[in-house]
Structures are given as structure tokens and as C-alpha cells.
């Protein structure tokens, strides 16, 4: 099990209150595989430094989690399939 920090940029067209439930849905992959989600931090709407998919804003979220490498890979794959997700980044905080 390793610690990961994940940043997800979501479509700004999403409503604020639907963010938490939809994130939880993604994170069930982690919890069912025996990992744990430590912290979900929703930064909210923020201007992008450059346009992504013709959008100038994005909803930033930062998630701290503990999971197996394969689980995280699967989570990242599922996030990238979803159209509401503009971009993701996964880092291991102990290595950076």
C-alpha cells in the first residue's frame, strides 16, 4: 500500500453540490480494493493558466489516498474515460 496524492480538474459546467457524490463514486474503486481515502479537498472553480478543451476555468480537487499501485492505475483509467474530467495527476508525495 502506498500513499498517493491525486489532483483532478473537473468540467466547470458541473454543479458544485454534485461534485462530492460523483467523486465518491469514483473513489469506491479504492475502498472496495482495501485502500482508504484520507482527504478530499475541493478547491472550487479556478482560472486555468491556458485553455483545456476550450474551457478557461476548471473545478480543482485534491484527494489524498492510500492504495495499491494497480488500484490507482484503474482509478486513473476510469477518471480519464469520464467526460466531466478535464485532467488528472497522480503523485507520490513521499517521492517529491
Amino acid at each position, binding site marked *: 500500500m502506498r500513499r498517493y496524492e491525486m*489532483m483532478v480538474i473537473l468540467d466547470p459546467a458541473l454543479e458544485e453540490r454534485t461534485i462530492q457524490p460523483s467523486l465518491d463514486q469514483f473513489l469506491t474503486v479504492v475502498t472496495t480494493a482495501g485502500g482508504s481515502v484520507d482527504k478530499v479537498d475541493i478547491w472550487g472553480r479556478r482560472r486555468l*493558466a491556458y485553455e483545456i478543451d476550450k474551457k478557461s476555468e476548471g473545478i480543482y480537487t485534491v484527494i489524498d489516498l492510500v492504495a495499491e499501485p494497480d488500484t490507482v492505475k484503474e482509478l486513473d483509467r476510469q477518471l480519464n474515460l469520464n467526460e466531466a474530467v478535464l*485532467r488528472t*495527476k497522480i503523485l507520490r508525495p513521499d517521492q*517529491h
Partner: protein
Amino acid sequence: MAKPPIRKPKKKVCLFCQEKVARVDYKDTGTLRKFISDRGKIRARRVSGNCTRHQRDVATAIKNAREMALLPYTSTAR
């Protein structure tokens, strides 16, 4: 003949060593912005005054931040 004055540049101390920062966070755009020019380019070590290790950490952090659109790759301001 006046000799050209020998410049003694003031020795800069690495900001991160001074504050004993364990890791340079790519999410901390306020700090990282000090190390990019107004064009968005990463400042050289002789300008920023960072030590070898922290300059490398700053560079990776800036690159990570750029990927997540927290910092610009280029900015045409000016």
C-alpha cells in the same frame, strides 16, 4: 588607467534551505511564481539563487504545475 571595478555579487541564499522546506509543492503557485519570469520561463539558478537540489525540485514542481494549468507554459503579457 582606472581598473574596471571588480564586482562582488552578493551571495544569495537558497530560499528553501533557509526556511527548511522538506519538499517543494507544485500546488503552491504563490511561491513558484517567484521562480518564473513574466514570460513564464523558469529562472536560472544564478538568478534565483537556489541550491542545486532545490533548483531541481523547483523546476519539476513548475513543470507539474504547468501540466495542471496552474502555471502558464508561456504568457504573452508584454
